[in-house]
């Protein structure tokens, strides 16, 4: 029985997703963004209830197209459904809105505002993710990096820790660790 189930599953998977290589860069990044939720633990009090949604915010231009929505559609992590919120360009007046996210993806378009954004997010329990160079050095938490064809991760655990976020050691294991001096 189990064997049969696995065959079916393998077939379904093969039809639904062709090889990784055929995915676009942002489809992969969208998946990663969603998966961070599995490896990060937010402090007590972040969620009002067990069914409160995990909000993934996208700040600046959205590079994912529809990939992010497709990725998280109908999915949940530990009972928390996933919501996507798009914020457009950084606006100081909307900082309180940003702070309500659990994961905040800072688009490359916000490169010039990065210091200001990170300053606004400091001390809040928001996991900051970006593809802006030197992101961890600036106090960001997770950077999407590239190593040949492969998308890699660079993490600043110190920054996460000061925001009371616990990043799983398993995630740290697969990432380059940035250590602040």
């Amino acid at each position, binding site marked *: 029985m189990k064997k049969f189930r*696995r065959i079916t*599953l393998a077939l379904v*998977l093969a039809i639904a997703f062709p*090889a990784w290589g055929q995915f676009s860069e942002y489809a992969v990044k969208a998946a*990663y963004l969603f998966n961070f*939720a599995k*490896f990060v633990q937010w402090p007590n009090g972040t969620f009002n209830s067990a069914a409160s949604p995990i909000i993934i915010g996208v700040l600046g231009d959205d590079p994912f197209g529809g990939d992010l929505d497709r990725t998280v559609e109908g999915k949940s992590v*530990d009972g928390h459904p996933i919501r996507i919120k798009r914020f457009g360009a950084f606006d100081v007046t909307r900082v309180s809105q940003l702070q309500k996210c659990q994961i905040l993806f800072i688009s490359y378009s916000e490169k010039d505002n990065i210091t200001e954004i990170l300053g606004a997010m400091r001390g809040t329990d928001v996991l900051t993710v970006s593809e802006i160079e030197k992101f961890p050095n600036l106090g960001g938490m997770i950077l999407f990096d590239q190593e040949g064809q492969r998308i*890699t991760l660079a993490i600043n655990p110190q920054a996460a820790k000061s925001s009371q976020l616990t990043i799983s050691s*398993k995630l740290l294991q697969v990432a380059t660790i940035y250590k602040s001096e």
Partner: protein
Amino acid sequence: MSWFSFRDMRLRRKIMVITVISTLVALVMACLTFFLYEKMTYPQVRLKTLSAWARIMGDNSTAALTFNDRKTAEEMLGTLKANPSVLSACLYDSKGQQFASYQRDRAARSRYPAVAEQAATEYSGGSLKIFQDIFSGGERVGYLFLETDTEEMRTRLTHYALITVLIGLISFFISLFVASRLQRYVTEPLHRVVDRMWDIARGEWDITKRLEVSGRDEIGDVAEAFNAFMGKLQTVKDMKSDLISVVSHQLKTPVAEINGFIENMLDGITGEVNSRQRGYLDQMLVIGRGNYKLISDLLSVSKIDRGVVSADIHPVSAKEVVALTIRDYEQIMKEKSLILRLEGTEEGIMLYADRDKVVEALRNLLNNAIKCTDSGSVTIRVGSEGDQGVIEVLDTGIGMDEETLGSLFTRNRVLGQEAHRSGAGLGLYISKYFMNIQKGDLTVTSEVGKGSCFKLVVPKYMKQAGTAA
């Protein structure tokens, strides 16, 4: 004694064999049970362990699978080196594509089963295979395949066998040692009983002896049964003694009277006796005296048996003793042309003894000496050795061989073939007994064809001490 003939083994060894065999049987059974139990349960235990390993490995690889990090995945699988029984491992992504792998022996096969074709667990061909789904946050992120050999199980079973043999050897020696100690509690009382039985059996008819009953076990039963048997025997013997005693008493006086009448007739009290009558009367007197002697001896023996013989000890001169002894024999010796020599009778040696019993012993010796000597002489020699007086009776008769000497003073001889020459043969037994109860002794040396020397020893009378030495 053959090792295999269990029936003929000494009890000591039987007990040891039984103990050792039962110890070994118990041990072998116990080890066999453990062995089988291990063989039966080991695959399950092994599977559980492997499952646990797979779950841990799978859980640890969720991030690597999720974030497509082959290097970390390979590193993680590499930690399987710590468990040398793991032959190979393979990590698949959620679509069943091979993601990372591990091989204990680099040269071994590099093909891993496809996710679809492998059952969850499989135990075959000396290897145990397991497939484990990997979940992360409720989503399947991949699969893990692990394969271990069963070398460990074989090693364990081999060790079991070795330990069994080792413990078997050790317990063999321990049980041998313990058995050799413990068997004494059975065999030693038994040996004691058997030894005492033989003592009694060889003993001079002393059936008043009894075995000590050492315990309430079967050996005690044997001793008790033997004692009961001896009791019966004693009853029979007592009856015999009583019978002899009564009959002898009843016969002794009539025989003595007949002898007296014959002597009177020979002395001519009843008138002239012609030579023919004298011949008959002489014969009758010889027979009568023989009977009288036999009856006296039987009476003495029955007294000895009943333990009612006592010695009446007084100072007495050796000269008097010898004189009383030879009184009735001078005539007979003259008739046989034997020379009687007396030596040392004039030295005034005083004995401290029962005169009548010493005389009876000496008369027995003299009587025997005369019977056994057809020509030559009989010598009675009086002397002393330290505080012992010695009276020897030497003859130049036929002598005796070693075998005869060995049983000379026993009364068992009565029924033997020697009886023909020496009457009832009880004389020497009685003589020796009479000497022993007055702290004396009777011994003999002899040589076939040259003659015998009987040596009678009794304490000398010590004037200064006033008592016997």
